[in-house]
């Protein structure tokens, strides 16, 4: 027995030595040249696919910079930024004035890509792309339009036969940027919505069922005849989900596409506020899709660690230029060049 224990010890020691040797040599290979800079970020789940791609690509270009991004949700991202536990945050909704006031140094907002939200539905026998007026969408989600053959819906869809069935509204149950964009849009097109419900990542929905995540909403819509809900354009494209057209402020019915979303952002470029905290739902422009929004990186203006500061600045510059080419393959709409140029000029404010 003792002999056996002794042999186990020898094996254990040998293993430990081996591991430490391997880890030493590993450390040696990565730290050659300059010191490794580790940057931590946290926030939006919507932006996670492209942020992790950017972190990978940037690491390939600058092997000494490692960006670690955790998709903990926009709210948690803002909290961690304010607490100083991460170097940058990411959010689908801009920070409020009250939140900005809590920050130790002023926080800059950098729009990274655009997301859009589309109405999707399941009406037995209807496979056409429905057209929705803003009044119809607001009425349905307020619970005032309850039948699919309501004149507010059928007027825009002449030639389609819609059933007299009750509409089942389905929304996101988890707090999400998607809900923020959707409710922000409804607040802009309907005074009643703005007054009664307002906009936010979670709101007090007047009617409907809640599904958890895009997959939960889609699942419920597929399961429930005569239902309507909303999902991110990215999700709809990747999963080949049927979605409707929405009437924009010029009266044209626009189908959401990466181009029509970028067009929506371009339409607001001239009136862009200096801090980029802007809602671009319901913008002017003939071909602009009206339910779209930026998603933001949140970076403090004062970063004391010089190596970190330089790395973050060079990452932001790269993200706004070459990095934008990563957007469309991942089904995000890229920034209009006017906007990215304005942001690039802001990077120098970080000191």
């Amino acid at each position, binding site marked *: 027995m003792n002999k056996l224990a002794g042999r186990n010890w020898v094996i254990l020691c040998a293993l430990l030595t081996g591991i430490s040797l391997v880890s030493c040599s590993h450390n040696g290979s990565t730290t050659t040249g300059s010191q490794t800079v580790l940057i931590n970020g946290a926030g939006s*789940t919507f932006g996670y696919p492209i942020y992790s791609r950017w972190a990978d690509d940037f690491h390939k270009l600058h092997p000494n910079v490692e960006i670690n991004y955790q998709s*903990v*949700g*926009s*709210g*948690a991202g*803002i*909290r961690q930024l304010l607490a100083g536990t991460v170097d940058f945050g990411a959010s689908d*909704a801009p920070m*409020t004035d*009250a*939140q900005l006031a809590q920050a130790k140094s002023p926080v800059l907002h950098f729009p990274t890509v655009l997301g859009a939200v589309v109405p999707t539905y399941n009406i037995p026998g209807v496979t056409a792309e429905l057209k929705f007026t803003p009044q119809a969408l607001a009425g349905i989600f307020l619970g005032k339009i309850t039948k699919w053959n309501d004149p507010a819906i059928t007027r825009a869809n002449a030639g389609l036969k819609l059933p007299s069935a*009750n509409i*089942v509204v389905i929304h996101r*149950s*988890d*707090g*999400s*940027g998607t809900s923020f964009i959707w409710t922000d849009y409804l607040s802009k097109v309907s005074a009643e919505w703005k007054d009664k*419900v*307002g*906009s*936010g*990542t*979670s*709101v*007090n*929905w007047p009617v*409907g*069922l*809640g*599904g*958890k995540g895009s997959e*939960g909403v889609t*699942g*419920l819509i597929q*399961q*429930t005849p005569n239902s309507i809900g909303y999902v991110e354009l990215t999700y709809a494209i990747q999963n080949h989900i049927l979605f409707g057209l929405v009437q924009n402020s010029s009266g044209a019915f626009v189908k959401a596409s990466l181009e029509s979303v970028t067009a929506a952002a371009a339409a607001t470029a001239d009136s862009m506020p200096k801090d980029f905290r802007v809602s671009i739902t319901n913008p002017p422009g003939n071909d602009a899709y009206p339910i779209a929004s930026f998603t933001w990186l949140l970076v403090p203006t004062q970063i004391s660690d010089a190596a970190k500061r330089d790395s973050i600045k060079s990452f932001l510059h790269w993200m706004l230029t070459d990095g934008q080419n990563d957007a469309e393959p991942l089904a995000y709409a890229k920034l209009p060049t006017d906007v990215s140029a304005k942001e690039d000029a802001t990077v120098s404010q970080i000191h």
Partner: protein
Amino acid sequence: MLERVNATGLTPSFRPLRIYWERLRRGDEIAHVLTLIFASTVIGVTALLVYQLWIQSALSRQKFGWAFFATRVWDPVGGQFGALPFLYGTVVTSAIALLLAVPLGLGTAIFLSEFSAKRISDALAFLVDLLAAVPSVIYGLLGIFVLAPLLRVWVEPVLRSQFGFLPFFRGPAYGVGFLAAGLTLAIMVVPFIVSVSREVLISVPREQREAALALGATRWETISRAVVPFAKTGILGSVFLALARALGETMAVTMVIGNDPKISASLFAPGYSIAAVIANEFTEATGSLYLSALIELGLVLFLLTFVLNGLARLLVLATAQRGGLLE
């Protein structure tokens, strides 16, 4: 050993210390201290949990007070928070789950321990234990893709036409809602009841059965009068375990309950539970009052579990005493 120490002429004041050292050396004291540390860890963790929930929910407690338990509005935009619909949803779904799972689970346990052959019983018990280990998201998927359509197309229309005079079975059938959540929970907690109850029933002494049989009782009389009452405390323990799981279940419930904070008598209607709303809204909760209200919901869930567990213990105490008197 002790004599030797005394013989060396140590003053009596050292004796307790020496005795203590002796106990330590024999392992008694080590076992005592170690187990004490483990036991106090459990108490410490619970206390820390309550303390944290209490401190972090201060903002919401000050703003809403007791009204938090009595108001129905949950409006993150307007900053109005009330826990009532979530409390209602949690209690109703857990009640449905227990109502269905207790007879089903207990029946299965009785069959496995009393009627079936040992090989079949062991094989089935193994399967039941496997069911207990299935992740809750799998049950949620089962609920949303199998149970909900089944309820919407078949069960709910039939219930409405047959029992529509009752307020529980009215209104449109969405599939998801209190009933779907309760059913999913029932499926999830049955394995706990079966597994624990079967073990308890098997461990009822042989003499107990033989005595009843010798008095001329039939097999069923033996089971219902001699075996099950003997195992009552253990069976109730399995029901508590099931209740605790049902109250705290998050993922499966949020997938099938409809996530709408409303109070409706109809079991077809969508609702919401405490655990589900915390999981859904915590990550994106901005604003300190909103966050604080969510944490207070956690406190409410803790209190609810505490109160229900306490009531259940009282029930056990009461029935155990009555049982004792009858014997």
